[in-house]
């Protein structure tokens, strides 16, 4: 049986603007992925626990508030500690140009700014997700 790509969509931090997270979750599901939406105000610990429990291939974070430089490093180190270093981590939201190389450096792969199409995100995930998954 073909393995479906499993994606945890999470909204870390205090912000509640979830339009983007929910639209992307729908788009990934319609593209055939298994999507787990964690809901609002998730701590890095809760997000990594969800990824572990759900055997996630991908974590998609929606961050609009400017807290990404505090949240992402914590998530990346927790993933590493749990042996989940091969989980693809992508971020969508408002990320200043200045911070993009810093996020790439700590292992955040895809960074999707306003105006990115849903199709682009679907394609990106299919192309970059870890190899145990059949993506055909």
């Amino acid at each position, binding site marked *: 049986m073909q393995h479906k790509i499993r994606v945890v*969509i999470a909204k870390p*931090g*205090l*912000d*509640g*603007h*979830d*339009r983007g997270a*929910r*639209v992307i*979750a*729908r*788009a990934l*599901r319609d593209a055939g992925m298994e*999507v787990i*939406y*964690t*809901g*609002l*105000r998730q*701590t890095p610990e809760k997000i990594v626990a969800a990824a572990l429990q759900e055997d996630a291939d991908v974590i998609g974070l929606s961050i609009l*508030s*400017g*807290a*990404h*430089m*505090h*949240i992402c490093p914590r998530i990346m180190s927790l993933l590493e500690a749990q042996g989940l270093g091969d989980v693809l981590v992508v971020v969508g939201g*408002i990320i*200043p*140009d*200045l911070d993009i190389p810093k996020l790439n450096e700590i292992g955040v792969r895809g960074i999707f*700014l*306003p*105006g990115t*199409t*849903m*199709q682009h995100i679907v394609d990106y995930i299919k192309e970059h997700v870890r190899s145990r998954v059949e993506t055909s």
Partner: protein
Amino acid sequence: MKNATQSATSSRPGERKQPFTTISGRVIDPLYTAADIASLNYQRDLGDPGEFPYSRGIHASGYHGKLWTMRQFAGFGTPEETNQRSQQLLAAGGTGLSVAFDLPTLMGRDPDHPLSLGEVGKCGVSVSSLADMEALCKGIDLSGITSSMTINSPASMIFAMYLVVAEKQGATWESLSGTIQNDILKEFIAQKEFIYPPRPSMRLVTDVLAFCAAHVPKWNTISVSGYHIREAGSTAAQELAFTLRDGIEYVQYGIDAGLDVDEFAPRLSFFFNAHSDFFEEIAKYRAARRIWAHVMRDRFKAKNPRSWKLRFHAQTAGVSLTVQQPYNNVVRTALQALAPVLGGGQSLHTNSLDEAFALPTAEAATLALRTQQIIAHETGVTDVTDPFGGSYFVEKLTRDLEEEALAYFDTIDRMGGMVEAIENGYPQKEIAESAYTYQRGVEAGDRIVVGVNAYVADAEVPIPLLYIDHSAAETQLARLANVKATRDDTAVRQSLDRLKAGAAGDANTMPLLLDAVRAYATLGEMCDVLREVWGEYEEIPVI
């Protein structure tokens, strides 16, 4: 004329798109005629401006007496930084203040709480105690201006801080004028900055209604908001319907709390989006006034005409701003801002060109204000009241939006009310569906967004941006530590104990909050006491 109608309505090869729809997906005919408004009765359905049902506006003289208030939303970093921005906007001709708070403040957390890490001062100004509010208002005569504060779950705590600062300035509460958003229902529906479950949250709201009716009579106690509902992806009709149905819910809860409707209803105001679909937006504002007038007179039997009049603030659509070719946003905002002016709004915020990236720079914020001033003083659109009144198209659109909203009222009434509808996830699901439909339309190319899916530039020209670093958080942490070190801890503890007992019983929480604020209890401490009594709300996530 007849020929023109026939050729316009027939399907012709080479027409740009079929069918033509508004940004909300509403199908629009190519031409509207007298037949479309045959059932419209001028006296019954429109009335002159200033006359029931106020479709044409709440003031007989339109903007001849007074222009709308140019109220630019501002807030970032420390109270001192925001105070400086406010003073600059007032000096540039702004006529009212509007304060944006950061996420910890909106969620009732102090800057030293673990969840506040990285969020202090980022999306608005950080205010966690009376000391911050004193710095925020320094040098501004609170009896001489109107202030709007965008605060919801902890609205009563922040309002209490404002009242105490006014008291210290020597201003009487009776003289104060302004608005707290205090609209918790749209938080559950759209913006999701909630703390407590819906029912105790509604109790905090009705406590403010009762307190202001007695002590701060010129204060707008709730700004019933559709803005965030629309930003979350609703259609224009859903924005209209859910916002006004929220208004109905507040009025009903106020009456159920023992208030006379005419005691508090005149101080309710509304806040709508000013989106890109020009005519649909104008029709939305006109429909809102007509629906509200009937609701207040017929459903709630309000006697005071001031209870019937829907006053509104509008803000241009943040969601329409693009990071691609950001100067295009100036044009979008200017066109959007025309709709609430032609639709008879009382107050307006225009977004800045850089807000798809960050909070605005001072220069961008000034340009946004200038946009309103140009509309007000150079275009002539303020000279005539309700200039689209009688337009076949706008009148038909107004009626259609009204009918769609009333159908939503029926659905929500059948659920038992808006609180029940929210608990069922109903408006949340309706909005999510519309948001997804819209996004798919953009990606299919059915909707053109200039610079995004058409007329794309090869290279983007960078614009200057405001970057908020960590220094604001450090300043705020230091002030908080100083407040805690210098206040009378016993007085704080006693005031918080009284707040807890009052919340567990049925006392009005406002006087108890005022005492806690005077003792320099922090926002987080006050909110935590109420968390202990009421618990926290957790939404069931649905996609």
